[in-house]
Protein backbone atom coordinates (compact mmCIF):
# COMPACT_ATOMS: atom_id res chain seq x y z
CA UNK A 1 0.00 0.00 0.00
CA UNK A 2 1.37 3.40 -0.98
CA UNK A 3 2.03 5.58 2.07
CA UNK A 4 4.09 8.49 0.72
CA UNK A 5 4.16 9.91 -2.79
CA UNK A 6 6.08 12.92 -4.05
CA UNK A 7 5.25 14.51 -7.38
CA UNK A 8 7.74 16.59 -9.28
CA UNK A 9 9.05 18.00 -5.99
CA UNK A 10 11.20 21.10 -6.23
CA UNK A 11 12.82 23.18 -3.51
CA UNK A 12 14.80 26.30 -4.20
CA UNK A 13 16.57 28.37 -1.58
CA UNK A 14 17.71 31.92 -2.07
CA UNK A 15 21.33 32.38 -1.08
CA UNK A 16 21.28 36.18 -1.15
CA UNK A 17 20.37 36.75 -4.81
CA UNK A 18 21.57 33.38 -6.10
CA UNK A 19 18.96 30.60 -6.26
CA UNK A 20 20.13 27.23 -4.90
CA UNK A 21 18.21 24.28 -6.34
CA UNK A 22 18.07 21.72 -3.51
CA UNK A 23 15.53 19.42 -5.17
CA UNK A 24 14.75 19.29 -8.84
CA UNK A 25 11.68 17.35 -9.81
CA UNK A 26 11.77 14.46 -7.34
CA UNK A 27 9.00 11.94 -7.95
CA UNK A 28 8.89 8.72 -6.00
CA UNK A 29 6.71 6.78 -3.62
CA UNK A 30 7.17 4.78 -0.42
CA UNK A 31 5.02 1.85 0.54
CA UNK A 32 3.76 1.09 3.99
CA UNK A 33 6.28 -0.91 6.04
CA UNK A 34 9.31 -0.08 3.91
CA UNK A 35 12.81 0.33 5.37
CA UNK A 36 14.23 2.80 2.91
CA UNK A 37 17.44 4.78 2.74
CA UNK A 38 17.96 7.94 0.78
CA UNK A 39 21.61 8.15 -0.03
CA UNK A 40 23.79 10.61 -1.81
CA UNK A 41 26.70 12.95 -1.29
CA UNK A 42 26.52 16.05 0.91
CA UNK A 43 24.33 18.72 -0.68
CA UNK A 44 22.42 16.23 -2.79
CA UNK A 45 19.10 17.16 -1.13
CA UNK A 46 18.59 14.23 1.28
CA UNK A 47 17.75 16.31 4.34
CA UNK A 48 15.61 18.69 2.30
CA UNK A 49 13.60 15.77 0.98
CA UNK A 50 13.07 14.38 4.51
CA UNK A 51 12.05 17.81 5.80
CA UNK A 52 9.46 18.13 3.04
CA UNK A 53 8.06 14.64 3.59
CA UNK A 54 7.93 15.37 7.33
CA UNK A 55 5.96 18.60 6.77
CA UNK A 56 8.68 20.64 8.42
CA UNK A 57 9.11 22.69 5.27
CA UNK A 58 7.07 23.48 2.17
CA UNK A 59 8.16 22.70 -1.41
CA UNK A 60 8.70 25.46 -3.96
CA UNK A 61 6.62 23.41 -6.38
CA UNK A 62 5.28 19.92 -6.75
CA UNK A 63 3.38 18.09 -4.07
CA UNK A 64 3.60 15.42 -1.38
CA UNK A 65 0.86 12.98 -0.50
CA UNK A 66 0.62 11.01 2.71
CA UNK A 67 -1.98 8.26 2.23
CA UNK A 68 -3.22 10.24 -0.75
CA UNK A 69 -3.79 13.41 1.32
CA UNK A 70 -2.10 16.38 -0.27
CA UNK A 71 0.16 18.26 2.19
CA UNK A 72 -0.22 21.41 0.13
CA UNK A 73 -3.88 21.60 1.13
CA UNK A 74 -3.12 21.44 4.85
CA UNK A 75 -2.83 24.53 7.07
CA UNK A 76 -0.25 24.91 9.86
CA UNK A 77 -2.54 23.39 12.44
CA UNK A 78 -3.22 20.32 10.33
CA UNK A 79 0.48 19.92 9.55
CA UNK A 80 1.19 20.00 13.32
CA UNK A 81 -1.47 17.34 13.83
CA UNK A 82 0.07 15.25 11.05
CA UNK A 83 3.53 15.45 12.63
CA UNK A 84 2.11 14.63 16.04
CA UNK A 85 -0.03 11.66 15.02
CA UNK A 86 1.65 10.05 12.04
CA UNK A 87 5.31 11.00 11.86
CA UNK A 88 8.25 10.45 14.15
CA UNK A 89 11.58 12.23 13.66
CA UNK A 90 15.10 11.11 14.48
CA UNK A 91 17.74 13.76 13.99
CA UNK A 92 21.47 13.53 13.46
CA UNK A 93 22.06 15.74 16.53
CA UNK A 94 19.45 13.79 18.58
CA UNK A 95 17.65 17.04 19.48
CA UNK A 96 16.40 15.92 22.86
CA UNK A 97 15.01 18.67 25.05
CA UNK A 98 17.90 19.38 27.43
CA UNK A 99 15.85 20.31 30.51
CA UNK A 100 13.81 17.09 30.41
CA UNK A 101 14.92 13.63 31.53
CA UNK A 102 15.01 10.74 29.05
CA UNK A 103 11.65 9.52 30.34
CA UNK A 104 10.10 12.99 30.06
CA UNK A 105 11.48 13.43 26.54
CA UNK A 106 9.74 10.21 25.51
CA UNK A 107 6.57 10.97 27.45
CA UNK A 108 6.29 14.46 26.00
CA UNK A 109 4.74 13.35 22.71
CA UNK A 110 2.14 11.27 24.56
CA UNK A 111 1.38 14.31 26.71
CA UNK A 112 0.69 16.35 23.58
CA UNK A 113 -1.64 13.56 22.46
CA UNK A 114 -3.56 13.85 25.73
CA UNK A 115 -2.62 10.43 27.10
CA UNK A 116 -3.27 10.33 30.88
CA UNK A 117 -0.18 10.70 33.07
CA UNK A 118 -0.16 7.18 34.48
CA UNK A 119 -0.69 5.52 31.11
CA UNK A 120 1.93 7.58 29.31
CA UNK A 121 4.48 6.87 32.02
CA UNK A 122 3.79 3.14 31.77
CA UNK A 123 4.01 3.18 27.96
CA UNK A 124 7.24 5.18 27.94
CA UNK A 125 8.86 2.95 30.59
CA UNK A 126 7.77 -0.22 28.78
CA UNK A 127 9.29 1.03 25.54
CA UNK A 128 12.49 2.05 27.31
CA UNK A 129 12.69 -1.46 28.70
CA UNK A 130 12.26 -2.95 25.23
CA UNK A 131 14.98 -0.70 23.84
CA UNK A 132 17.34 -1.49 26.70
CA UNK A 133 17.47 2.03 28.06
CA UNK A 134 15.31 1.63 31.18
CA UNK A 135 18.27 2.66 33.32
CA UNK A 136 18.40 6.07 31.65
CA UNK A 137 14.90 7.16 32.71
CA UNK A 138 16.04 9.86 35.12
CA UNK A 139 19.05 11.03 33.17
CA UNK A 140 19.13 14.29 31.28
CA UNK A 141 20.62 14.43 27.78
CA UNK A 142 23.92 15.89 29.00
CA UNK A 143 24.36 12.84 31.25
CA UNK A 144 24.06 10.35 28.36
CA UNK A 145 26.41 9.19 25.59
CA UNK A 146 25.60 9.84 21.94
CA UNK A 147 24.38 6.28 21.43
CA UNK A 148 22.16 6.49 24.49
CA UNK A 149 20.72 9.81 23.37
CA UNK A 150 19.97 8.42 19.93
CA UNK A 151 18.17 5.43 21.47
CA UNK A 152 16.09 7.82 23.52
CA UNK A 153 15.41 9.77 20.31
CA UNK A 154 14.26 6.54 18.64
CA UNK A 155 11.98 5.82 21.58
CA UNK A 156 10.57 9.34 21.36
CA UNK A 157 9.94 8.90 17.63
CA UNK A 158 8.06 5.62 17.94
CA UNK A 159 6.36 5.90 21.35
CA UNK A 160 2.99 6.73 19.82
CA UNK A 161 3.41 4.14 17.05
CA UNK A 162 3.49 6.56 14.10
CA UNK A 163 3.09 5.28 10.55
CA UNK A 164 6.34 6.87 9.41
CA UNK A 165 9.68 7.49 11.06
CA UNK A 166 11.98 9.90 9.26
CA UNK A 167 15.60 9.65 10.33
CA UNK A 168 18.11 12.24 9.15
CA UNK A 169 21.58 10.68 9.24
CA UNK A 170 20.80 8.86 12.51
CA UNK A 171 24.19 7.17 12.78
CA UNK A 172 26.37 10.07 11.70
CA UNK A 173 27.55 10.87 15.24
CA UNK A 174 27.85 7.25 16.44
CA UNK A 175 30.70 4.76 16.41
CA UNK A 176 30.22 1.72 14.18
CA UNK A 177 29.25 -0.70 16.98
CA UNK A 178 26.64 1.67 18.41
CA UNK A 179 25.42 2.51 14.90
CA UNK A 180 25.02 -1.17 14.10
CA UNK A 181 23.05 -1.78 17.28
CA UNK A 182 20.81 1.20 16.57
CA UNK A 183 20.11 0.01 13.03
CA UNK A 184 19.24 -3.46 14.31
CA UNK A 185 16.90 -1.83 16.78
CA UNK A 186 15.13 0.20 14.09
CA UNK A 187 14.93 -2.78 11.80
CA UNK A 188 13.27 -4.72 14.60
CA UNK A 189 10.75 -1.89 15.07
CA UNK A 190 10.08 -1.99 11.35
CA UNK A 191 9.57 -5.72 11.25
CA UNK A 192 7.72 -6.16 14.52
CA UNK A 193 5.54 -3.07 14.47
CA UNK A 194 5.27 -2.38 10.75
CA UNK A 195 6.58 1.19 11.11
CA UNK A 196 7.85 2.66 7.83
CA UNK A 197 11.41 3.99 8.16
CA UNK A 198 12.90 6.50 5.73
CA UNK A 199 16.57 7.37 6.34
CA UNK A 200 18.88 9.85 4.84
CA UNK A 201 22.46 8.65 5.03
CA UNK A 202 25.68 8.08 3.26
CA UNK A 203 26.82 5.58 5.88
CA UNK A 204 27.57 2.24 4.23
CA UNK A 205 26.21 0.34 7.24
CA UNK A 206 22.87 2.07 6.91
CA UNK A 207 22.71 1.33 3.23
CA UNK A 208 23.49 -2.33 3.92
CA UNK A 209 20.63 -2.53 6.41
CA UNK A 210 18.18 -0.77 4.07
CA UNK A 211 15.77 -2.90 2.06
CA UNK A 212 15.57 -0.19 -0.57
CA UNK A 213 18.03 2.58 -1.46
CA UNK A 214 17.18 5.75 -3.37
CA UNK A 215 20.21 7.72 -4.50
CA UNK A 216 20.03 11.47 -4.94
CA UNK A 217 22.51 13.58 -6.83
CA UNK A 218 22.20 17.34 -7.26
CA UNK A 219 18.59 17.24 -6.17
CA UNK A 220 17.51 14.51 -8.54
CA UNK A 221 16.96 10.75 -8.14
CA UNK A 222 19.65 8.98 -10.08
CA UNK A 223 19.05 5.47 -8.82
CA UNK A 224 16.28 3.57 -7.02
CA UNK A 225 16.84 -0.12 -6.45
CA UNK A 226 13.30 -0.85 -5.49
CA UNK A 227 11.26 1.52 -7.57
CA UNK A 228 7.56 1.02 -7.02
Amino acid at each position, binding site marked *: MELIRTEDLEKTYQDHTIPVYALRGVTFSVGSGEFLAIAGPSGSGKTTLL*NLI*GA*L*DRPSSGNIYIENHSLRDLD*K*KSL*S*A*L*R*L*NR*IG*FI*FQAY*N*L*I*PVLTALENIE*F*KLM*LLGVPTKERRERALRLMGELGIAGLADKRPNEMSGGQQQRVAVA*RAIVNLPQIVLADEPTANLDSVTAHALLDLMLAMNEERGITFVFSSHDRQVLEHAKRVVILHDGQIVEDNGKR
Partner: protein
Amino acid sequence: MVAIAIGLISLALTDSIYNGVIIQMFRDQVGTHVGHLQIHRRGFNENKVVQNWLPDPDAVERRLAADSLISHFAKRVIAFGIVSSASNSSGITLVGVEPERERLVTTIERSVSSGGYLQTGQRAILISRRMSEKLSVRLGDKLVVMATALDGTVGTDVFRICGLYETSSSEFDRMFVYIPLSYSQQLLGLGERVMEVTAVLRNPEDAYALRDRLAPVLGPEFEVLSFAELIPMMMQIITVAKQSMVIYYVIIGIATMFGIVNALLMSVFERTRELGILMATGMKNRNIVTMILMEAFFLSIIGTVIGLGIGIAISLLLAGPGINLSAFAEGLTMVGASSRIYPVVSLDGIINGLTVVPAIALIAALYPAVRAIRLEPVRAIHYV
Protein backbone atom coordinates in the same frame (compact mmCIF):
# COMPACT_ATOMS: atom_id res chain seq x y z
CA MET B 1 11.78 38.73 37.53
CA VAL B 2 14.26 40.83 39.48
CA ALA B 3 13.16 43.90 37.50
CA ILE B 4 9.52 43.15 38.29
CA ALA B 5 10.34 42.65 41.96
CA ILE B 6 12.27 45.93 42.14
CA GLY B 7 9.42 47.72 40.37
CA LEU B 8 6.90 46.27 42.80
CA ILE B 9 9.03 47.18 45.84
CA SER B 10 9.08 50.78 44.68
CA LEU B 11 5.37 50.63 43.79
CA ALA B 12 4.39 49.22 47.19
CA LEU B 13 6.52 51.78 49.02
CA THR B 14 5.24 54.71 46.97
CA ASP B 15 1.67 53.51 47.30
CA SER B 16 1.93 53.18 51.09
CA ILE B 17 3.65 56.58 51.44
CA TYR B 18 0.99 58.24 49.27
CA ASN B 19 -1.70 56.54 51.32
CA GLY B 20 -0.02 57.67 54.50
CA VAL B 21 0.17 61.28 53.28
CA ILE B 22 -3.45 61.27 52.07
CA ILE B 23 -4.83 59.70 55.24
CA GLN B 24 -2.76 62.01 57.44
CA MET B 25 -3.76 65.11 55.47
CA PHE B 26 -7.39 64.10 55.66
CA ARG B 27 -7.25 63.28 59.37
CA ASP B 28 -5.35 66.48 60.17
CA GLN B 29 -7.64 68.75 58.19
CA VAL B 30 -10.88 67.12 59.26
CA GLY B 31 -9.69 66.42 62.78
CA THR B 32 -8.16 69.80 63.55
CA HIS B 33 -11.10 71.97 62.65
CA VAL B 34 -13.44 71.00 59.83
CA GLY B 35 -15.19 67.92 61.21
CA HIS B 36 -17.26 65.70 58.95
CA LEU B 37 -20.32 67.90 58.62
CA GLN B 38 -21.10 71.57 59.22
CA ILE B 39 -24.42 73.34 59.37
CA HIS B 40 -24.69 77.09 58.73
CA ARG B 41 -27.11 79.67 57.54
CA ARG B 42 -27.27 79.38 53.74
CA GLY B 43 -24.48 81.47 52.26
CA PHE B 44 -22.21 81.52 55.33
CA ASN B 45 -19.56 79.31 53.77
CA GLU B 46 -19.23 81.77 50.86
CA ASN B 47 -19.49 84.90 53.02
CA LYS B 48 -18.30 84.39 56.58
CA VAL B 49 -19.71 87.52 58.22
CA VAL B 50 -21.32 87.68 61.64
CA GLN B 51 -24.61 88.71 60.08
CA ASN B 52 -24.86 85.17 58.67
CA TRP B 53 -25.54 83.67 62.08
CA LEU B 54 -27.19 80.28 62.33
CA PRO B 55 -30.96 80.44 62.79
CA ASP B 56 -32.46 78.34 65.58
CA PRO B 57 -29.34 76.46 66.71
CA ASP B 58 -31.35 74.62 69.37
CA ALA B 59 -33.49 72.97 66.69
CA VAL B 60 -30.35 71.99 64.79
CA GLU B 61 -28.83 70.50 67.94
CA ARG B 62 -32.00 68.54 68.72
CA ARG B 63 -31.96 67.15 65.21
CA LEU B 64 -28.29 66.13 65.42
CA ALA B 65 -28.68 64.65 68.89
CA ALA B 66 -31.40 62.37 67.58
CA ASP B 67 -29.28 61.01 64.70
CA SER B 68 -27.48 57.73 65.36
CA LEU B 69 -24.86 58.37 62.66
CA ILE B 70 -23.49 61.32 64.61
CA SER B 71 -20.89 60.77 67.27
CA HIS B 72 -20.46 64.35 68.65
CA PHE B 73 -21.21 67.94 67.68
CA ALA B 74 -20.40 71.43 68.94
CA LYS B 75 -21.48 75.03 68.32
CA ARG B 76 -19.02 77.65 67.19
CA VAL B 77 -18.69 81.34 66.52
CA ILE B 78 -16.51 82.20 63.57
CA ALA B 79 -15.33 85.70 62.71
CA PHE B 80 -12.45 87.45 61.01
CA GLY B 81 -10.51 89.90 63.11
CA ILE B 82 -7.17 91.17 64.27
CA VAL B 83 -5.06 90.12 67.22
CA SER B 84 -2.45 92.49 68.60
CA SER B 85 0.38 92.20 71.05
CA ALA B 86 2.55 95.03 72.31
CA SER B 87 4.87 94.59 69.38
CA ASN B 88 2.89 93.20 66.46
CA SER B 89 -0.54 92.35 65.10
CA SER B 90 -1.99 89.73 62.77
CA GLY B 91 -5.16 89.00 60.86
CA ILE B 92 -6.97 86.01 62.32
CA THR B 93 -9.92 83.70 62.08
CA LEU B 94 -11.44 83.91 65.53
CA VAL B 95 -13.12 80.72 66.67
CA GLY B 96 -15.39 80.77 69.71
CA VAL B 97 -15.80 77.26 71.05
CA GLU B 98 -17.47 75.34 73.83
CA PRO B 99 -14.21 73.89 75.22
CA GLU B 100 -15.71 70.70 76.63
CA ARG B 101 -17.68 69.84 73.49
CA GLU B 102 -15.01 71.04 71.06
CA ARG B 103 -12.48 68.56 72.46
CA LEU B 104 -14.86 65.75 71.39
CA VAL B 105 -15.22 67.12 67.87
CA THR B 106 -11.67 68.17 66.94
CA THR B 107 -8.11 67.39 67.92
CA ILE B 108 -7.23 70.98 68.86
CA GLU B 109 -6.90 70.12 72.55
CA ARG B 110 -4.39 67.37 71.66
CA SER B 111 -2.45 69.85 69.51
CA VAL B 112 -1.60 72.03 72.52
CA SER B 113 2.16 71.79 72.97
CA SER B 114 2.66 74.41 75.71
CA GLY B 115 0.39 75.58 78.47
CA GLY B 116 -3.17 74.28 78.60
CA TYR B 117 -6.41 74.06 76.71
CA LEU B 118 -9.29 76.56 77.10
CA GLN B 119 -11.58 76.27 80.12
CA THR B 120 -15.23 77.26 80.06
CA GLY B 121 -15.67 80.67 81.68
CA GLN B 122 -11.94 81.46 81.55
CA ARG B 123 -11.06 84.66 79.70
CA ALA B 124 -8.24 83.03 77.80
CA ILE B 125 -7.01 82.66 74.26
CA LEU B 126 -5.38 79.69 72.56
CA ILE B 127 -3.03 80.57 69.71
CA SER B 128 -0.48 78.66 67.66
CA ARG B 129 3.22 78.60 68.47
CA ARG B 130 3.82 80.07 65.05
CA MET B 131 1.58 83.06 65.86
CA SER B 132 3.18 83.53 69.28
CA GLU B 133 6.52 83.88 67.48
CA LYS B 134 5.04 86.37 65.06
CA LEU B 135 3.48 88.42 67.85
CA SER B 136 6.52 87.95 70.09
CA VAL B 137 4.40 86.77 73.02
CA ARG B 138 4.62 83.95 75.54
CA LEU B 139 2.24 81.97 77.70
CA GLY B 140 0.40 84.25 80.11
CA ASP B 141 0.88 87.37 78.01
CA LYS B 142 -2.11 89.46 77.05
CA LEU B 143 -3.48 89.87 73.54
CA VAL B 144 -6.06 92.30 72.23
CA VAL B 145 -8.66 90.83 69.89
CA MET B 146 -10.68 93.06 67.57
CA ALA B 147 -13.49 92.04 65.23
CA THR B 148 -16.53 93.61 63.60
CA ALA B 149 -19.56 93.04 65.81
CA LEU B 150 -23.10 92.23 64.68
CA ASP B 151 -24.18 95.86 64.94
CA GLY B 152 -21.28 97.04 62.76
CA THR B 153 -19.16 98.42 65.57
CA VAL B 154 -15.72 97.07 66.38
CA GLY B 155 -15.71 94.68 69.33
CA THR B 156 -12.55 94.64 71.40
CA ASP B 157 -11.46 92.48 74.28
CA VAL B 158 -8.30 91.39 76.05
CA PHE B 159 -7.36 87.75 76.62
CA ARG B 160 -4.48 86.06 78.38
CA ILE B 161 -2.67 83.30 76.45
CA CYS B 162 -3.45 79.98 78.11
CA GLY B 163 -1.78 77.67 75.60
CA LEU B 164 0.09 77.28 72.33
CA TYR B 165 -0.88 74.68 69.76
CA GLU B 166 0.90 73.18 66.76
CA THR B 167 -0.75 71.42 63.82
CA SER B 168 0.70 70.00 60.63
CA SER B 169 -0.68 72.92 58.61
CA SER B 170 1.30 76.14 58.69
CA GLU B 171 -1.59 77.96 57.00
CA PHE B 172 -3.98 76.90 59.75
CA ASP B 173 -1.53 77.88 62.47
CA ARG B 174 -1.08 81.31 60.93
CA MET B 175 -4.81 82.10 61.05
CA PHE B 176 -6.80 80.30 63.74
CA VAL B 177 -7.14 81.48 67.35
CA TYR B 178 -9.57 80.08 69.91
CA ILE B 179 -11.50 81.71 72.74
CA PRO B 180 -14.42 80.39 74.77
CA LEU B 181 -17.80 80.65 73.02
CA SER B 182 -19.39 82.99 75.58
CA TYR B 183 -16.59 85.56 75.25
CA SER B 184 -16.77 85.46 71.47
CA GLN B 185 -20.53 86.06 71.61
CA GLN B 186 -19.91 88.94 74.00
CA LEU B 187 -17.14 90.40 71.82
CA LEU B 188 -19.27 90.32 68.69
CA GLY B 189 -22.55 91.29 70.34
CA LEU B 190 -24.17 88.06 69.24
CA GLY B 191 -26.16 87.28 72.37
CA GLU B 192 -26.80 83.51 72.22
CA ARG B 193 -26.21 83.33 68.50
CA VAL B 194 -23.59 81.06 66.86
CA MET B 195 -22.29 80.71 63.30
CA GLU B 196 -22.13 76.99 62.87
CA VAL B 197 -22.59 73.56 64.31
CA THR B 198 -19.82 71.09 63.51
CA ALA B 199 -20.40 67.37 63.78
CA VAL B 200 -18.22 64.28 63.63
CA LEU B 201 -19.72 61.00 62.49
CA ARG B 202 -19.09 57.48 63.63
CA ASN B 203 -18.17 56.67 60.01
CA PRO B 204 -16.91 59.61 57.85
CA GLU B 205 -18.24 57.91 54.72
CA ASP B 206 -21.78 58.55 55.94
CA ALA B 207 -21.23 62.31 55.61
CA TYR B 208 -22.72 62.52 52.13
CA ALA B 209 -25.78 60.48 52.99
CA LEU B 210 -26.38 62.44 56.19
CA ARG B 211 -25.96 65.75 54.34
CA ASP B 212 -28.56 64.69 51.79
CA ARG B 213 -30.91 63.56 54.56
CA LEU B 214 -30.53 66.63 56.82
CA ALA B 215 -30.66 69.38 54.18
CA PRO B 216 -34.35 68.93 53.24
CA VAL B 217 -35.36 68.38 56.87
CA LEU B 218 -33.69 71.60 58.11
CA GLY B 219 -35.04 73.65 55.23
CA PRO B 220 -33.74 76.16 52.67
CA GLU B 221 -32.46 78.61 55.28
CA PHE B 222 -29.66 76.21 56.16
CA GLU B 223 -26.66 74.85 54.33
CA VAL B 224 -25.43 71.39 55.28
CA LEU B 225 -21.91 70.77 54.03
CA SER B 226 -19.79 67.65 54.12
CA PHE B 227 -15.99 67.80 54.48
CA ALA B 228 -15.68 67.43 50.69
CA GLU B 229 -17.39 70.82 50.18
CA LEU B 230 -15.67 72.41 53.15
CA ILE B 231 -12.11 71.57 52.10
CA PRO B 232 -12.32 71.37 48.30
CA MET B 233 -8.64 72.21 47.94
CA MET B 234 -7.68 69.28 50.14
CA MET B 235 -9.99 66.99 48.21
CA GLN B 236 -8.35 68.17 44.99
CA ILE B 237 -4.90 67.48 46.42
CA ILE B 238 -6.08 64.00 47.39
CA THR B 239 -7.53 63.48 43.90
CA VAL B 240 -4.29 64.66 42.30
CA ALA B 241 -2.31 62.36 44.61
CA LYS B 242 -4.49 59.43 43.57
CA GLN B 243 -4.07 60.35 39.90
CA SER B 244 -0.32 60.56 40.41
CA MET B 245 -0.45 57.02 41.71
CA VAL B 246 -2.27 55.94 38.54
CA ILE B 247 0.48 57.58 36.47
CA TYR B 248 3.05 55.79 38.60
CA TYR B 249 1.24 52.51 37.97
CA VAL B 250 1.35 53.24 34.23
CA ILE B 251 5.09 53.97 34.37
CA ILE B 252 5.78 50.79 36.35
CA GLY B 253 3.46 48.92 33.98
CA ILE B 254 5.33 50.15 30.89
CA ALA B 255 8.70 49.35 32.49
CA THR B 256 7.42 45.88 33.40
CA MET B 257 6.10 45.41 29.89
CA PHE B 258 9.45 46.26 28.32
CA GLY B 259 11.26 44.07 30.84
CA ILE B 260 9.04 41.09 30.11
CA VAL B 261 9.10 41.56 26.33
CA ASN B 262 12.89 41.74 26.49
CA ALA B 263 13.27 38.73 28.80
CA LEU B 264 10.87 36.58 26.80
CA LEU B 265 12.31 37.59 23.44
CA MET B 266 15.73 36.59 24.74
CA SER B 267 14.22 33.36 26.03
CA VAL B 268 12.57 32.63 22.65
CA PHE B 269 15.82 33.51 20.90
CA GLU B 270 17.89 31.25 23.14
CA ARG B 271 15.42 28.38 22.84
CA THR B 272 14.83 28.60 19.10
CA ARG B 273 16.17 25.09 18.60
CA GLU B 274 13.98 23.66 21.38
CA LEU B 275 10.94 25.43 19.96
CA GLY B 276 11.80 23.86 16.61
CA ILE B 277 11.93 20.41 18.24
CA LEU B 278 8.57 21.05 19.91
CA MET B 279 7.09 22.09 16.57
CA ALA B 280 8.60 19.07 14.82
CA THR B 281 7.13 16.86 17.53
CA GLY B 282 3.73 18.25 16.65
CA MET B 283 3.16 20.83 19.35
CA LYS B 284 0.40 23.15 18.19
CA ASN B 285 0.87 26.93 17.93
CA ARG B 286 -1.83 27.35 20.56
CA ASN B 287 0.21 25.25 23.01
CA ILE B 288 3.39 27.19 22.28
CA VAL B 289 1.58 30.50 22.87
CA THR B 290 0.08 29.14 26.08
CA MET B 291 3.50 27.94 27.22
CA ILE B 292 5.08 31.38 26.72
CA LEU B 293 2.12 33.19 28.32
CA MET B 294 2.26 30.86 31.31
CA GLU B 295 5.97 31.49 31.61
CA ALA B 296 5.34 35.26 31.63
CA PHE B 297 2.48 34.85 34.07
CA PHE B 298 4.45 32.83 36.59
CA LEU B 299 7.50 35.06 36.15
CA SER B 300 5.36 38.09 36.92
CA ILE B 301 3.48 36.44 39.79
CA ILE B 302 6.70 35.37 41.50
CA GLY B 303 8.27 38.80 40.89
CA THR B 304 5.09 40.54 42.07
CA VAL B 305 4.75 38.47 45.24
CA ILE B 306 8.43 38.92 46.13
CA GLY B 307 8.38 42.65 45.28
CA LEU B 308 5.10 43.33 47.05
CA GLY B 309 6.20 41.28 50.04
CA ILE B 310 9.44 43.21 50.44
CA GLY B 311 7.71 46.55 49.71
CA ILE B 312 4.97 45.87 52.26
CA ALA B 313 7.50 44.67 54.84
CA ILE B 314 9.54 47.87 54.44
CA SER B 315 6.34 49.97 54.60
CA LEU B 316 5.26 48.22 57.80
CA LEU B 317 8.69 48.71 59.32
CA LEU B 318 8.53 52.42 58.50
CA ALA B 319 4.91 52.72 59.66
CA GLY B 320 6.01 52.67 63.32
CA PRO B 321 8.65 55.40 63.49
CA GLY B 322 7.44 57.16 60.32
CA ILE B 323 9.61 58.78 57.66
CA ASN B 324 11.13 62.06 58.74
CA LEU B 325 10.76 64.59 55.95
CA SER B 326 11.57 67.64 58.04
CA ALA B 327 13.92 68.81 55.28
CA PHE B 328 10.79 69.44 53.23
CA ALA B 329 8.68 70.51 56.20
CA GLU B 330 7.89 74.00 54.88
CA GLY B 331 6.44 72.70 51.61
CA LEU B 332 4.57 69.86 53.30
CA THR B 333 2.98 71.97 56.05
CA MET B 334 1.82 74.47 53.43
CA VAL B 335 -0.40 71.79 51.93
CA GLY B 336 -1.43 70.56 55.34
CA ALA B 337 0.80 67.50 55.43
CA SER B 338 2.91 66.50 58.38
CA SER B 339 6.69 66.45 58.08
CA ARG B 340 6.69 62.89 59.44
CA ILE B 341 4.96 60.49 57.08
CA TYR B 342 3.58 57.19 58.34
CA PRO B 343 3.19 54.77 55.40
CA VAL B 344 -0.14 52.95 55.26
CA VAL B 345 -0.40 49.67 53.33
CA SER B 346 -3.76 49.52 51.58
CA LEU B 347 -5.65 46.49 50.39
CA ASP B 348 -6.34 48.34 47.11
CA GLY B 349 -2.60 48.72 46.54
CA ILE B 350 -2.00 45.01 47.12
CA ILE B 351 -4.88 44.00 44.83
CA ASN B 352 -3.71 46.45 42.14
CA GLY B 353 -0.16 45.10 42.29
CA LEU B 354 -1.29 41.48 42.22
CA THR B 355 -3.60 42.01 39.24
CA VAL B 356 -2.14 44.82 37.14
CA VAL B 357 1.41 43.49 36.77
CA PRO B 358 0.49 39.88 35.82
CA ALA B 359 -2.14 41.25 33.41
CA ILE B 360 0.48 43.52 31.84
CA ALA B 361 2.90 40.58 31.73
CA LEU B 362 0.37 38.52 29.77
CA ILE B 363 -0.17 41.35 27.28
CA ALA B 364 3.59 41.89 26.98
CA ALA B 365 4.16 38.17 26.37
CA LEU B 366 1.92 38.15 23.30
CA TYR B 367 4.59 39.64 21.05
CA PRO B 368 7.33 37.08 21.95
CA ALA B 369 4.70 34.34 21.68
CA VAL B 370 3.76 35.44 18.17
CA ARG B 371 7.46 35.61 17.28
CA ALA B 372 7.84 32.04 18.53
CA ILE B 373 5.03 30.58 16.46
CA ARG B 374 6.24 32.38 13.37
CA LEU B 375 9.45 30.36 13.52
CA GLU B 376 9.76 27.83 10.73
CA PRO B 377 10.37 24.40 12.30
CA VAL B 378 13.01 23.39 9.77
CA ARG B 379 15.12 26.50 10.39
CA ALA B 380 14.48 26.52 14.13
CA ILE B 381 15.73 22.92 14.52
CA HIS B 382 18.98 23.72 12.76
CA TYR B 383 19.42 27.04 14.59
CA VAL B 384 22.76 27.24 16.35
